[in-house]
């Protein structure tokens, strides 16, 4: 059955912090080899969803499956098929780029020899092969993100989660990171869930999940959501769905 399982299946997911409901009955899938955007304003519940999908918290209700493996019941199997780029910078700034990658490899049970080979390949893919021995501190914001993406893909996952990966980057670095990830989807068949509050990062062909105040307002192809709302573009559709909430 697992051969047909989507890269990510979120089913009736709910979560609350005390009495405050952060997520309410959210369901969507990310197909293998596709780019899906999770769109919502700050406080929409994106980070909560992210924490639940990565198993940092356990959900109060519903389930999350990664390639058919339930994150609550088989966390090890689910997590090894998942690559994650967090919103906060999580590189160890005192260590070199290579040391950061080797640490990640060890956390996935990959030894230093194999780890070094995979890290070199990952850095080459990210176009940063010659920075391997530099301290992470010496990289630019955009380069750090590329290293974090390389690191997240080091152990060979087929699903990549990115939590607002372009926050804090300049325009060129933003475009560069987005193009890099889209390229990985196109050429490597990677499944991606890209969390954002920036409308202009979404293409017509993308699958979009609109999250607002913990509720899922729409899910489907961007073009479909636009036409269902009778809007001109995804930005206008988002405004209508969220009742004109300001960006």
């Amino acid at each position, binding site marked *: 059955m697992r051969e047909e399982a989507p890269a990510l299946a979120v089913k009736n997911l709910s979560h609350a912090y005390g009495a405050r409901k952060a997520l309410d009955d959210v369901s969507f899938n990310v197909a293998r080899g596709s780019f899906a955007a999770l769109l919502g304003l700050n406080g929409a519940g994106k980070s*909560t969803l992210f924490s639940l999908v990565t*198993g*940092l918290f356990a959900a109060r209700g519903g389930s999350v499956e990664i*390639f058919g493996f339930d994150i609550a019941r088989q966390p090890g199997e689910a997590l090894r098929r998942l690559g994650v780029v967090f919103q906060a*910078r999580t590189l160890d700034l005192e260590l070199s780029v290579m*040391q950061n990658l080797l640490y990640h490899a060890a956390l996935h*049970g990959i030894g230093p020899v194999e780890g070094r080979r995979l890290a070199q390949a990952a850095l080459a893919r990210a*176009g940063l092969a010659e920075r391997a021995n530099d301290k992470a501190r010496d990289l630019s914001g955009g380069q750090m993100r590329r290293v974090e993406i390389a690191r997240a893909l080091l152990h060979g996952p087929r699903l990549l989660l990115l939590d607002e990966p372009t926050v804090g980057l300049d325009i060129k670095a933003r475009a560069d990171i987005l193009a890099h990830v889209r390229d990985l989807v196109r050429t490597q068949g990677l499944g991606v869930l890209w969390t954002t509050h920036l409308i202009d990062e979404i293409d017509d062909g993308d699958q979009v999940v609109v999250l607002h105040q913990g509720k899922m307002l729409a899910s489907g192809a961007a073009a479909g959501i636009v036409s269902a709302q009778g809007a001109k573009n995804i930005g206008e559709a988002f405004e209508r769905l969220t009742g004109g909430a300001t960006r």
Partner: protein
Amino acid sequence: MTTVPAPDSTPLPANGESECAHPLAFRQYAICLGGVVWREALRFLHQRERFVSALVRPLVWLFIFAAGFRSVLGISIIPPYETYVLYEVYITPGLMAMIQLFNGMQSSLSMVYDREMGNMRTLLISPFPRWFLLGAKLFAGVAVSILQVYAYLLIAYFWEIEPPTKWGYLTVLPALALAGLMLGALGMLLSSLIKQLENFAGVMNFVIFPMFFASSALYPLWRVKESSPWLYYACAINPFTHAVELIRFAFYQKIAWDSAAAVLAYTSVFLIAAIRAYDPAKGLLTRKGG
């Protein structure tokens, strides 16, 4: 803005494609543990000030406090000592434990920092079970604390503070490992309870100082009993007292069985509570919004 060279199109590794479950092999657990210890050691080497201050703190106590008090505080012959000992000799096990106490709290501080900065997440999304990841981190912290203790002992040796035979340096090792585990587990538990870095100063005041002063590190418990029975009882149940006594006896190639049992019991309690606190289902981390 630096320009990024064109990426090459090396295919992604394919491990993630397998559809069946593969349990992690024992070798992989060893690799993961090795990686966590290696990172902790690298970080420690990069923070030279941390090493220096970890060493200076007990030396200040030894060279200034102990030198000043050696004539004020008389120490009678109590086990494991078979003769009168100088005050410097008496407080050395307490200072060894103090190094470990500070190290345990420092690790917990770095865990709170890592959690705020997001580094903790990179550890917790590893496919290994969470108890193992936390255990590996604890083990790494203990290894670093033991290195610090031996660096201190080397300096103390030149001050003519040494065990009765050289074997004492070896027999103290298991005691240091056990005491380090207990204090590290306590630090880990505290790190799960502290929501923000700013609250950490309170921990220093309410955990480190009372634990250190209400213990047998600086004065034998019979002296405390003479002045205040209540303080004596507080000292007697203080986990730090047992860590100090375990180390004191082991340094003299003896075993303080009651302290060993107490340290083991406290370690289990702290460890189980810490693992529980970091458990995604029951954990206290869920209190944090996001």
